[in-house]
């Protein structure tokens, strides 16, 4: 099997995923696209640069990020698969503003100082109702401020996903957030949520093992799964259970006894204020036997035992496959042989690279499987993917971040508020008749500023200009300026990823009607109409 090696030439272009590089001229990829061979090919074998079409580039940008503009798609198509994937993976080579730890206030929910605690105790003892009431009000004020701050963190993250020139970094941060799902609703500490989010970003494309060692020290996670109350003699099993069931091994690969013993290993792992604290006096330092490994294991020993299990690599390979490639059946035996082989290959790569993620991600993004017809344009976008992807690819105004967050919530995904430690189920569970309307209508909002309840005050100021899409599409296909049908097909391929007649015919009819008075089809009003229709199509929900 031919293995792809890292491209040696550094990408000299300035961050093409945020700015506008000059695209290299390309030949029409369709003319060089070979028919997919019907003979059995190794699904993990890499796609050749010569096979890499604009359609493939579009697909890569959606799955390894949040979609791209026509110009970005053309840039990647010209680069070829290997260079494009390397560019997306090498996030550190793309400059972007760092995230400072003091971006948000860290003292809103700080624990009381020793003096404050003493004063409160004294007030309670003296039944000083006035002071006690004052403390209560202070607490409530802090909680209110913190709820405002978590909203700011949500808006900041959404904005970052929209603006980042390193889309894969945020895409993987979102993956880890869904994997190590922690909800503000339970922990009520916005700064801890922010710090956890930063952990996911710093390790987004790093090392899964490292992430696991870090997560048992993460204040938000320790609070969420009650490990801050876990002491020698009365261990709390919550973190130990989810660490194996949801974060690493999966159900069936550990015993109830492993949970009990694992919980002992995690006793004393807690935090004070914003810092992890190991409380030796609360830690059970006795012998334990976890997953076949025995000794006076602590949390790190527990994590090491987990990482040594083949089941962990398989679980993570499947989880990555589901997020980046396609859904999988619940049971392994329902997987077809090729898929099983592919997932096994990724699992082996994870283990052999000691859980470094980039080799596996590279393998996935370059594989023939990733570009198969059964994969391309077949995944249902998450609400965040839908919203961020629409702004990034169509270049709509961002309008109001709060409105976008509300819409994502209505569609079933409120970032930093996952429904449970299982995260979001995703796939078809995103879709029902009401979420489908919200999905269509949030696109109306982005394209026109119109909300269901009425027009946004800023809509007139922030007018969307769709003409830039035509300009970019014309770079590769000058005919779109003169041939209306070529324009509509190019728009459909770009926006929806397909140009079937059943999709296009209603839109052709709309354009014919709208241009019957002599108006140009590239009139912004008509183009916006076309985009409203394309984004309201059922197919638009897929990427």
């Amino acid at each position, binding site marked *: 099997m031919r293995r792809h090696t890292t491209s040696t030439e550094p990408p000299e272009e300035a961050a093409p995923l945020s700015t506008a590089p000059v695209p290299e001229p390309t030949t029409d990829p369709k003319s060089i696209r070979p028919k997919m061979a019907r003979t059995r090919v190794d699904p993990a074998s890499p796609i050749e640069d010569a096979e890499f079409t604009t359609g493939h580039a579009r697909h890569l940008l959606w799955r390894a990020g949040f979609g791209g503009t026509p110009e970005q798609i053309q840039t990647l198509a010209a680069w070829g698969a290997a260079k494009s994937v390397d560019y997306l993976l090498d996030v550190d080579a793309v400059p972007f503003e760092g995230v400072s730890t003091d971006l948000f206030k860290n003292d809103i929910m700080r624990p009381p100082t020793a003096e404050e605690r003493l004063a409160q105790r004294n007030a309670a003892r003296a039944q000083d109702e006035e002071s006690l009431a004052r403390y209560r009000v202070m607490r409530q004020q802090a909680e209110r401020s913190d709820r405002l701050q978590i909203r700011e963190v949500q808006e900041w993250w959404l904005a970052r996903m929209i603006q980042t020139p390193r889309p894969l970094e945020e895409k993987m941060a979102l993956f880890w957030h869904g994997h190590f799902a922690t909800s503000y609703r339970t922990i009520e500490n916005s700064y801890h949520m922010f710090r956890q989010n930063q952990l996911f970003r710093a390790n987004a494309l790093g090392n899964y093992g490292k992430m696991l060692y870090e997560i048992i020290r993460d204040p938000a996670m320790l609070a969420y799964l009650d490990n801050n109350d876990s002491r020698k003699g009365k261990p709390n099993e919550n973190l130990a259970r989810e660490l194996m069931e949801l974060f690493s091994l999966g159900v069936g690969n550990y015993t109830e006894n492993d949970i009990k013993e694992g919980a002992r290993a995690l006793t004393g792992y807690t935090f004070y204020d914003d810092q992890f604290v190991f409380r030796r006096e609360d830690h059970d330092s006795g012998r334990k036997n976890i997953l076949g490994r025995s000794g006076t294991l602590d949390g790190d020993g527990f994590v090491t035992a987990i990482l040594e299990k083949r089941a962990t690599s398989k679980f993570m390979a499947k989880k990555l496959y589901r997020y980046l490639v396609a859904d999988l059946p619940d049971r392994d035996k329902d997987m077809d042989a090729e898929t099983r082989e592919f997932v096994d290959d990724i699992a082996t790569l994870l283990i052999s690279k000691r859980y470094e993620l980039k080799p596996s991600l590279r393998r996935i993004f370059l594989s023939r499987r990733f570009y198969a017809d059964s994969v391309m344009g077949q995944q249902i976008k998450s609400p965040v993917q839908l919203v961020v992807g629409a702004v990034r690819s169509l270049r709509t105004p961002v309008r109001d971040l709060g409105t976008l967050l509300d819409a994502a919530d209505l569609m079933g995904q409120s970032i930093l508020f996952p429904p449970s430690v299982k995260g979001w189920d995703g796939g078809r569970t995103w879709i029902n*008749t009401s979420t489908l309307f919200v999905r269509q209508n949030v696109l109306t909002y982005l394209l026109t500023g119109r909300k269901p309840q009425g027009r946004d005050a800023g809509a007139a100021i922030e007018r969307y200009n769709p003409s830039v899409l035509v300009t970019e599409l014309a770079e590769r296909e000058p005919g779109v300026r003169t041939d209306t049908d070529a324009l509509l097909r190019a728009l459909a391929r770009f926006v929806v990823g397909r140009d079937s007649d059943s999709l296009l015919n209603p839109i052709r009819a709309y354009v014919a009607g709208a241009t019957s008075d002599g108006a140009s089809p590239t009139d912004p009003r008509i183009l916006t109409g076309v985009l409203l229709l394309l984004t309201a199509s059922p197919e638009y929900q*897929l990427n």
Partner: protein
Amino acid sequence: MSTEHKSPFTRREFMTTSLTFASAALTVPSFLQRSAFAVGQPSGSLSSIAGVDQNRILVVVQLSGGNDGLNTVVPFGFDQYYRMRPGIGVNAAQVLKLSKAEGVGLHPALTGLHELHEDGLLSVVQGVGYPNPNRSHFKSMDIWHTADTSATGDGWLGKYVDSQCCGEGSGESGTQVAKAMEPPIAIGRTAPLALQARKVVPVSFESADLFRWTGQDASASLSKPYDELVERGVTGDVDPSSNAAFLMRTALDARVSSDQIRKAVSAKSLVEYPRTGVARDLSMVASMIRAGLPTRVYYVSMGGFDTHAGQGGAQGSHANLLRQFGDAVRAFYSDLKAQENDARVLTMCFSEFGRRASQNASGGTDHGTAAPMFLAGPMVRPGVIGNHPSLTDLDDGDLKHLLDFRSVYAGVLKDWMQTDPDSVIGKNYRSAVLLKKS
């Protein structure tokens, strides 16, 4: 089988043929014939499943947060009640007495339910719960929704609706002709787990205004092409089991049900409803029933019952919740009676758990176990069904349940929905006799 069957759900077939469809392995689109449901007409002509009266409707009202059963159906005849609840116990003199029931009565704020009881339209099912009760809202709610104490699997009403659809187990190659049951409708931003299963996708909406595409507001000329786009159904170039096909079916569903539902709920109700959320939701359900929608399962939720602190007694925050709930159900049945649809509609009310027998230090109650359920409608056995759970024989401070909630579900499925409950909730639960012998 010809290749045409690759895509049985074209728009044309939807709009022009009948409820009949082939291929059982697919989620089933709803509201197959939108022209069929003229406002005010009963949907009897659409009766589709042999042996099942299509006209029967089940409305579920969920009280979220854990309703305090002991301050809802008050055991005023038991001194122990007042000993355990010195601050929040409801004075015996204020309790609304239930004829034929000794020592138990309704909270004074439940005048609405009391009127229903006096009219023979209410049954109080005592002491409902399940073994090894779970005190997590989330988990216990899932247990009630799945009818399974592992809290996993499909929703019980979803399974019921699926079981009425498509002929279970006929497989992808199945060519049998089957009839679809309409998807259940939930009022709320998302459909509850109880309605989720494999084949029939539930409909949910918070407000009918949001249940439409807003793009057409930008230009009227977009309406027609939009209709054409979403009414394509599943096009021939798409694998019928793919996500694309699933989306095309759901989009068609949304399009068709949007029209019907918005038209239905825009009609003025026949009676005045209180100005509360739950009353508004039930009035929408009544309007959809009146409009002749063939939907057979509706779901309404009301929150706020997690009364850990300062819940009050005869008055206070819990009393306010009960009043909203009781008055809304009362108005709902007045409306249904005015529509002459009351005999078609059974309403079942539940909460994920009751609360602990004793009040806590904050003048509230913490998460508990067994609690009463209410059934409403002219078909119920009126009065109190079952004894009140003992206030002295407690399980670590909690009431012991006397009736498994799955027996209530089984009774509703068997005697009202006229289906075999075994296929939905298993064989382990004897169905409770909750309805009048017909």
